[in-house]
């Protein structure tokens, strides 16, 4: 009887642990606003990795009134891609041990440069995004804010 109770307890503990693990990595999913307030980035999951694309831009059109394109892309054949909808955040993998997302990249359309990226949730609705080249020691950090529905 004691053995059955013990096995049941272990199974329950393992089950709740696995639920907690799944929930943690998916806390990244949502719509986020970088600190400059000029865009919204929607982060979702494809397979086991996380990706973010531009879903709103403060200035979606250029001076001529045409939709802004990825004109700085190093691959010339891709420069006609509209920035609205562009997937600037790619291949982020959750590291459960350190509680962060890493091994991915973030693209800056202003200069066509792709940086290594890692992200940490500082609070439920605050995400620290660090872009860097080579080692994470040298880079730039931005804080993104999650868009949440206003309570009535």
């Amino acid at each position: 009887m004691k053995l059955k109770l013990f096995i049941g307890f272990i199974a329950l503990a393992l089950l709740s642990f696995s639920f907690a693990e799944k929930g943690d990595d998916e806390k990244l999913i949502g719509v986020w606003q970088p600190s400059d307030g000029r865009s919204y980035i929607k982060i979702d999951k494809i397979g086991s990795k996380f990706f973010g694309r531009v879903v709103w831009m403060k200035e979606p059109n250029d001076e001529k009134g045409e939709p802004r394109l990825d004109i700085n892309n190093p691959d010339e054949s891709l420069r006609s891609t509209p920035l609205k909808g562009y997937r600037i955040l790619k291949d982020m993998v959750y590291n459960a041990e350190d509680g962060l997302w890493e091994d991915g990249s973030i693209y800056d359309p202003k200069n066509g440069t792709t940086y290594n990226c890692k992200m940490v949730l500082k609070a439920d609705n605050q995400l620290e995004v660090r872009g860097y080249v080579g080692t994470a020691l040298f880079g730039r950090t931005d804080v993104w804010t999650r868009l949440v529905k206003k309570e009535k």
Partner: protein
Amino acid sequence: MKNIELRLSMVWLTILTILLSSCSPSLSTETVDMELELVGETLFEGSNSLQYANKNQLADLAATIGMDSRSLKSVVVSKALIELNELSRPITESLLLQVVSDNQELITIGTLNPLPEGKQFVLSLAENTSILPYLKDSGSTWVLDLNISEDYMDEMVVNGTLTLSIEYKPN
């Protein structure tokens, strides 16, 4: 004396290597079509994603040309065709096709913006469209990002055809 023997044996070894490599069969090329069925639902105006997950892809592709998957040396997308239907065409403004797998990063295969007249679109291909590493993974996901001009509350299915240029070593 020993030096001369050593040099002679090196020369023989080099000749043997050249002979062996010249006797091995050279690479052959074949073209195969790969069908994609990209699906998404409840799409809101703006940017959206359709996806198609693929499994056992390398073995299936190799079987198509009657080869073992180990004999495939390179697989490159040489053409990407996307076909919209009478419901999706009027509201679709741009197309961006990408692929990702667990061990490979997401890459762009092709893009098209704006869309010309018609329902079939050949994408402008990226410089690197080599997908063998993605096919080697247990599964890959094809992602079609598209901007739409109005909400689409039903399931949207878009068909794609990739022309793959396969280099392989004949048995």
